[in-house]
């Protein structure tokens, strides 16, 4: 293929990209771009760490372990919170890219819309993983004690939780065509966290809140993440909650995404 005479390139010899254009170069520049964004770094790494220091889990909470608050369960709750924040903001990046017209620019390339969504999901999940890792590292330094297998399992489950919120972020990203989408979502996430039992066990909430709690998207995922540590009976409604919310957010995102790509 020569550069000199583009029209002599046999048209049929051109190939489309495999995987719809999904590739590691694109992914790595996306991540570099995220790290350049101060707000993303603050939301993903600093907020969870500050929260952890506020709760100062090991020293202050050990005394409260009788009512179900231990350093370890609180650490897991904050890890889920960090994963939620990170994954949501990762997914919500599509809103900024739509506002800047980048999505339209990408439609002039072979990148398939599904591959674009996949890249956003991977980036959101990587952000979530970073957040979980940072919170767990803080916990380890602070002296949280768990069996090695429990560290790994709870961490992995807290991370998988971010899938719910990556879908939520995508949904919001297609719903709100705004550069400040996270300012809208922030308060919503705070409500999810409080009512879902991320910081305070649901059993300690006022009874009206306890009635709402099981319907929060956070309720199932945080209970699942704590299960390897807490043990006891596995409540199938936790899994139902996680699956239904992920499916609901993903479906809503897909509907809006179709509308977005059809319009022009």
């Amino acid at each position, binding site marked *: 293929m020569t550069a000199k005479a583009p029209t002599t390139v046999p048209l049929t010899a*051109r190939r489309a990209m495999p995987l719809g*254009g999904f590739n590691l*170069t694109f992914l790595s520049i996306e991540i570099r*771009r995220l790290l350049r964004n101060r707000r993303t770094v603050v939301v993903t790494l600093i907020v969870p760490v500050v929260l952890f220091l506020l709760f100062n889990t090991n020293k202050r909470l050990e005394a409260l372990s009788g009512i179900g608050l231990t350093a370890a369960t609180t650490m897991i709750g904050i890890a889920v919170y960090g994963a939620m924040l990170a994954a949501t903001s990762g997914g919500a990046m599509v809103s900024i890219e739509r506002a800047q017209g980048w999505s339209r620019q990408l439609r002039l*390339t072979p990148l398939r819309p599904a591959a674009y969504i996949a890249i956003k999901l991977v980036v959101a999940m990587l952000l979530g993983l970073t957040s979980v890792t940072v919170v767990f590292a803080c916990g380890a330094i602070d002296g949280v004690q768990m069996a090695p297998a429990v560290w790994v399992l709870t961490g992995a489950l807290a991370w998988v939780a971010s899938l719910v919120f990556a879908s939520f972020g995508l949904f919001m990203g297609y719903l709100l065509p705004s550069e400040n989408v996270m300012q809208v979502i922030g308060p919503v996430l705070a409500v999810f966290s409080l009512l879902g039992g991320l910081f305070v066990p649901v059993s300690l909430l006022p009874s009206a809140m306890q009635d709402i709690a099981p319907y929060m998207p956070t309720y199932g995922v945080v209970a699942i993440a704590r299960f390897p540590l807490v043990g006891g009976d596995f409540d199938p409604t936790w899994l139902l909650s996680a699956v239904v919310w992920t499916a609901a957010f993903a479906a809503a995102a897909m509907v809006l995404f179709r509308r977005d790509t059809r319009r022009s």
Partner: protein
Amino acid sequence: MTGDHGSPAAIELHDVHRSFGQVHAVDGIDLRLALGEIAALLGPNGAGKTTTLDMILGLGRPDEGTVQVLGMSPAAAVSRGLVAAVLQTGGLLKDLTVRETVRMTASLYAAPRPVEEVLERAGIASIADRLVGKCSGGEQQRLRFALALLPDPALMALDEPTAGMDVEGRRDFWSAIRRDAEQGRTVLFATHYLEEADAYADRIILLRQGRIVADGTAAEVRNLSSGRSVRASLPDADQATLSALPGVRSVEIRGDRVLVQTMDSDAVARYLLTATPARDVEIVAHNLEDAFLALTSDEAAGASADRAPSAPERSAA
């Protein structure tokens, strides 16, 4: 090279319609562009230029009719990197550098041109490490052009590519396009700048209210708007006699001034100078601007011959 047997047209539109609500943005366009042509879609705002380009790029579908690009659907041509475009609306990420933007886009093509080569050809190699948010409008536009060069496309579409650029930016941009087109690329650009169409296109396709009203070389389009006008001072001019001269399309009399639109200016001048006491005879050839205004103005719908060449007052558009 461009006339290979069996090689498809660069663009083939058949009876294409597209409406937005009550507005017929494109109202029955047939167009064939051969490989290697450099053509301008010229027309005032709202003539249907952007809608037409969007359909060629697969960003919009026609309500009726067919669109083929290089013998395949627009989407297929885009996914193979055969078509690339510089759009008014295509956005860039402000928090990437110029080079990162090019590298990122290059990663989406199976066999892209090298990043450094593309930066060089678009004239932005010297600002490759600058953040896109810190680039001028003209630099961002050349970055979009660089992105469009990556797949080495057979067809390059540009929508008002120099809108908002200063004179120097515009010249730099077009010289980059021109250099590139010399290597045989098919180029279709939309513009409402007459001088751009005239200077850079081999072929001008004039759009008006969603239809093609003229299609040809700049000279041909110019001729379409009724030859020349002849003016003279002539008291008591005889309108009937003037109108009966060969080639005359319209006669306008304002006081002592006579204005004749004609395909045969020699015949009118000869008559005025030999058979009447006419003075101050002037013959003016229409320029492309007159053609543009004559063919795209609203009155042009019915009686284009009746238009007086009062172009300068109306050229603000």
